């Protein structure tokens, strides 16, 4: 039992998969970056009529965009990573996460049974999953990490 039991029985869809923006193929790099900024996301999934065609992350911005101003108005398709590795929402969470670690990915798009994008698997998803298992130990911490209370204090 315990945690091992839990994760083996979770499906990918039970994790928090919300960490992505979605743009249509042909969108410019500039528009994509602005959408990511507005939505506070580090990863954009590029789709064509709902089907995934590529992935574009802050790592791509660092390596391919920031130092080459020309890139800004090009379609995102030219700088994205095409046909990324994916998992499906009904895959076992444990298997998907192990696969993600093995391949050193930080973002793994999640598809439904029709091949449509429904989420993005990240390390955040796993950390969030564990935080949810121990909410009292993990969420209810003082905002200042170095705060030490030496006595119980109420109102």
């Amino acid at each position, binding site marked *: 039992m*315990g*945690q*091992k039991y*839990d*994760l083996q029985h979770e499906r990918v869809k*039970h994790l928090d998969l919300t960490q992505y923006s979605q743009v249509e193929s042909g969108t410019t790099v*500039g528009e994509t*970056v*602005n959408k*990511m*900024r507005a939505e506070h996301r*580090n990863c954009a999934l590029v789709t064509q009529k709902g089907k995934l065609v590529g992935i574009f992350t*802050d*790592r791509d*911005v*660092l*390596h391919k*965009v*920031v*130092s080459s*101003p020309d890139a*800004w108005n090009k379609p995102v398709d030219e700088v994205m990573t095409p046909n990324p590795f994916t998992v499906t929402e009904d895959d076992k969470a444990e298997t998907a*996460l*192990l696969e993600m*670690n093995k391949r050193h990915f*930080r973002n793994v798009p999640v598809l439904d049974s029709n091949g449509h994008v429904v989420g993005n698997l*990240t*390390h*955040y998803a*796993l*950390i*969030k999953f*564990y*935080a*949810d*298992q*121990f*909410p*009292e*130990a*993990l*969420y*209810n*911490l*003082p*905002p*200042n*990490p*170095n*705060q030490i*209370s030496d*006595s*119980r*204090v*109420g*109102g």
Partner: protein
Amino acid sequence: MTEVTLNLTRKDFVSDQMVRWCPGCGDYAILAQMQRVLPELGIPKEDIVFISGIGCSSRFPYYMDTYGIHSIHGRAPTLASGLKLTNPNLQVWVITGDGDGLSIGGNHLIHTLRRNIDLKIILFNNRIYGLTKGQYSPTSLPGTKTKSSPMGSIDPAFNPTAVAVGVGATFIARTAATDVKHMAEMFRRAAHHKGTSFVEVYQNCLIFNDGAWDYATNPKTKHENIIYLEDHKPLIFGKNKDKGIRLNGIHPEVVSLDEVDESELMVHYEDMPDGSLSYFLSQMRHERGMPEPMGVFRCVDEPVYEEEVLQQIDLAIEQKGKGDLQQLFYQADTWVVEDESSGQNGSNGQGGNGSVPTLGVDEEYVGVVFNDEASSEPYFSPTDTLSTLNPRQPLIASQDISLGEAIQKLHNLDVGLLALVDDNGKLAGVFTEGDVLRKVAGNVTDLDATPVKDFMTTNVTALKEDDTLAQAIHLMSIHKFRHILLVDDDNRPVGVLSSRRVAHYIQDNFAEN
């Protein structure tokens, strides 16, 4: 008024006061989410006020960097009503608890809800009096053994949402402090509602009533015990969404979706004008074998009290002219009391040096909080220190380098975070790939002529090697940190932990078991 984009962040709402609740108190999660939601509302800080009564939850206003009043027991809604009527431009939040709001101030709460003044009331329900060390409260279930009910309480429990429905509140919601995303959404909805918003938050008191909400918050079982309400959608619940609520006569019952078609289920409407549907929902209690609804029970538009009051005032002035208060005072049978020479009032001789008695510490409970080794048995321990995760050496550079150089360093070494230090090697700020995405790309033409200083994040929340894994996961899950910088006692960067490293650590240790 001019339209200005405020660009407030969570930090703008964090006050300089040390947050003093017991470690593990559910109040921390509520505070954190409130500080996340407020910046999104686009309301200047000086137009937001938090008013509380008395109790652990009522320390809340100290920790918000807004205006606030830590007021009188049970009377927060009263002060809030007066304030809102005097200055309707303010957004006024009321922070109360099950004791403060339902017992001491029960009457005030009821009438505030009835009037529909535009206040946002958050009721922290932990089913116990925490501040006074564990007496049963109006929401304690019958049979609860406490210091004041050693043989088990015999009072039937108050049902806060049913009370709110009963007095016709226009916005009623319920959430749990451990369900942080949902809670944030409820705060958002409450903030946007025009009229009195009432949000009940299930909040655990680790010290005096631990586990009171276990059925509704334990990730293993909660999906069978709670039901998330969605507007215009049938009432479906269960981890696999395989159960629903059907109305049998006038009684809601749980049915299996294997046997019953979805079309037979009760459908939720937040805006049902009368309160009957909300009342059904409020009566679905765990102790009666029903899943408890979480979410917005009711959200209807009705006239707002302060608007009508102000209209009446305007009308009265129009009809009778502006009044004179002084004249009003003197028009009745009044007289002046002459000053009698020696007006020395009877003092009992005490006081003077202002020595305030110190509150005694209840020795019985000293140490209880801090010896609390994790009761569940995770395969990794949240108390593991960060040094056991073998943090990587951080990439370090002087804060005086250019943006171009900083980006080059991240690019060449393919890392996510650059620690920037001053001449003494102490941490000055950090610059991450996220900063490149969010602030730099497309905005800066000459990277080499721009100092990285202008784009780095200062006031970095850094941890130390002997801080706990729990602290790192806290930052990564609630505040979505992707890297955590570790510093030594002299504030020199000594390590960096990525979310990948933390995720791997969790999984590796998981595999070993």
